């Protein structure tokens, strides 16, 4: 299509939506599907069919609304009044919701514990968030490109195509956006590197491997708003001069894959992808590659080996992918969430994005808030928010009357943050100073029942399992660390083991080949830093001494 056709399509879709009395949206993301949103969909469909006013209403699936622990969720939108959000919906509740909403009544008062009760939208869980990347999640139907276009979709691409590639890179650089995949490398700078690298053939890769267990930001984004990631990728390709893109998505995410496939197909059909995009000179094609269950394949060089059909072994850098990536060609690798932020930056301007966040960490970050909290789910917050706000305001505090012990960010590559640092602002540098990392956005809260050496052992087992085996510190070192932690947990360790543990951690950090090994000791180092007493209490000698005293 031509750029001028885009608003026409948008208006058509808007008119269609406005012609309906109301719009019922049920969440069809993986979490809500698991809680039973299939039955909700059936309930809603049946109730609408049975109701004479049903024809005038619209029913649509949508992506994650955030509070996954309260799913399945349903949102009902009206043109003339604020929307209503229902939680814990089931089949019967769906019928009641349809009846109430079509009758134009306020939701009937029901017992507080019952299914399908109203979830107020002015609670801190929602009000403390700033939705930039997730702005359309839970609002649009992810399987309909028209809905995306009606919500400003592909306008950023039109705008970008009107700029020179250098200007696009500059804009991203000025916005201060940093990579959301973990390392926080300035995105605009990375684009510049790829753009200026020599070579006719270039690639863009969206990293959707999301290996951190306990994190699902990228999954949700791909499921709830696949076009925004795709559009971000097309803009990136234009900026760096790439002709081919790959989505690398883990096999555990079939729904995300399905939605991306559909998005690619629809965008191609509309001329937003493929040859001469939007009538311009620029052509770009996208394929999906499925990861096959290897955490290390989130690491960019291993990921490229995997796309090339090899064992997912990382290799030495330099050369960086920007100089020599897929099949030796310059390659841009960005995290899915990083690409998801692009359209907003292009549309609203670098200055606007730059205005959110802290001095060195700009914009918003999505976190998967999990663990022992009252509210678990997916949140998007401005950089610089304190951990306390996240845990207590958004997360609703620690569940079941227990107390907060620590929050783990960065998963197996990160560290824990104890209660005394709850007021630390969440940004790349502050988290690093505490011995953790921003990571990709997993945030797991542990309460006072968690044993920190056991948590460290859990992460080390993960690393042992996921080590590719190429370099000796990671292959052998993690096994030895795990062995010591096992001794600690079994009460068989002595002080010398702890000394050896600390030294080993430093060796593995300093000598491993890739980020997996280099960061594998982090959970051990950080739990030792903040909870050394727990380790010491578990030492064999200490344990037997205590036993004697109590005897």
């Amino acid at each position, binding site marked *: 299509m031509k750029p001028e056709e885009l608003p026409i399509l948008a208006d058509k879709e808007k008119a269609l939506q406005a012609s309906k009395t109301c719009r019922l949206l049920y969440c069809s993301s*993986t*979490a809500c*599907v*698991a*809680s039973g949103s299939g039955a909700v969909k059936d309930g809603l469909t049946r109730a609408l069919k049975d109701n004479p006013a049903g024809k005038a209403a619209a029913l649509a699936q949508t992506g994650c609304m955030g*509070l*996954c*622990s309260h*799913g399945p969720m349903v949102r009902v939108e009206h043109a003339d009044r604020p929307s209503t959000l229902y939680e814990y919906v089931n089949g019967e509740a769906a019928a009641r919701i349809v009846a109430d909403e079509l009758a134009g009544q306020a939701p009937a008062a029901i017992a507080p514990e019952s299914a399908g009760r109203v979830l107020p939208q002015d609670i801190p869980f929602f009000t403390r968030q700033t939705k930039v990347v997730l702005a359309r999640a839970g609002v649009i139907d992810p399987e309909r490109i028209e809905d995306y276009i009606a919500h400003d979709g592909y306008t950023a691409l039109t705008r970008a195509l009107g700029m020179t590639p250098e200007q696009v890179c500059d804009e991203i650089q000025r916005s201060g956006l940093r990579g959301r995949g973990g390392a926080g490398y300035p995105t605009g700078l990375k684009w510049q590197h790829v753009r200026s690298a020599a070579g006719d053939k270039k690639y863009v890769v969206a990293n959707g491997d*999301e*290996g*951190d*267990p*306990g*994190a*699902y930001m990228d*999954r*949700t984004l791909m499921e709830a708003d696949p076009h925004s990631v795709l559009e971000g990728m097309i803009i990136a390709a234009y900026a760096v001069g790439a002709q081919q893109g790959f989505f690398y998505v883990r*096999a*555990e*995410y079939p729904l995300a894959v399905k939605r991306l496939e559909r998005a690619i197909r629809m965008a191609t059909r509309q001329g937003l992808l493929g040859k001469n995009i939007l009538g311009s000179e620029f052509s770009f094609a996208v394929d999906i*590659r*499925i*990861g*096959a*269950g*290897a*955490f290390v394949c989130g690491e960019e060089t291993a990921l490229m080996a*995997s*796309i*090339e*059909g*090899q*064992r*997912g072994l990382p290799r030495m850098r330099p050369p960086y992918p920007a100089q020599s990536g897929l099949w030796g060609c310059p390659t841009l690798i960005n995290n899915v969430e990083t690409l998801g932020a692009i359209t907003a930056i292009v549309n609203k301007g670098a200055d606007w994005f730059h205005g959110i966040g802290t001095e060195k960490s700009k914009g918003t970050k999505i976190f*998967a*808030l*999990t*663990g*022992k909290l009252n509210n*678990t*789910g*997916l949140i998007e917050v401005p950089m610089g928010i304190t951990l306390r706000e996240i845990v207590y305001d958004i997360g609703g505090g620690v569940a079941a009357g227990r107390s907060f012990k620590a929050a*783990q960010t960065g*998963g*197996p590559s990160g560290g824990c943050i104890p209660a005394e640092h709850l007021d630390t602002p969440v940004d790349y540098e502050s988290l690093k100073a505490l011995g953790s990392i921003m990571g990709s956005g*997993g945030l*797991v*809260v*542990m309460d006072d029942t*968690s044993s920190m050496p056991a*948590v460290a052992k*859990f*992460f080390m087992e*993960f690393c042992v*399992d*996921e080590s*590719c085996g190429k370099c000796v510190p990671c292959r052998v070192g993690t096994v030895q660390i795990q062995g010591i932690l096992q001794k600690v947990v079994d009460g068989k360790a002595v002080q010398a083991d702890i000394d050896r543990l600390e030294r080993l951690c430093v060796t593995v950090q300093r000598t491993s080949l890739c980020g997996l090994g280099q960061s594998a000791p982090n959970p051990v180092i950080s739990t030792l830093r903040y909870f050394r007493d727990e380790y010491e209490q578990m030492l064999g000698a200490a344990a037997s001494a205590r036993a004697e005293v109590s005897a």
Partner: protein
Amino acid sequence: MLIHSRAGAVSAQQAKAALAADPRLKLVERAIKKFDARGDALLEVLSTAQEAFGYLSQDLMRYISLALHVPLARVYGVATFYHLFTFKPAGEHTCIVCLGTACYVKGAADIVSTLEGAYRVKAGQTTADGKLSLLVARCLGSCGLAPVAVMDGGVVGKETPGDAIGRVATLIGAIPEAQR
């Protein structure tokens, strides 16, 4: 095409013949064709084969090696690298328990050990009668519902050991020995 091996020349046709007229091979062939039999599509083709057959047999890997022009050693090396691929047929039913961080913190390990005890099977293995494969995963991306399990493809959240036993029992239509 022929491969030069001491065991004698094996052609793609022969390797295919070893798989007999298995209709599932069609899916693999289609994947091979979709990627123009390019060697770099090895993972895609292996995934398709794994999904179609439920595991990768030696004949299947040999066939893929020949069809994609990828040395058999590499096919085997790649297949054993990724956790997704298995080399033995799975049980009639599968129960995957997530042991990702969020699920671990919420006690997923107890679910695994309960099921292990109840069905006398180690995580990652299949019961002797071939009815149940008990598997563990590292995060299924539904952490908001932790602990999470997948029973024959269906995701269930906020599991307890008790729930899990019940669900598996309905799944395979048998109450665990230990509870009888």
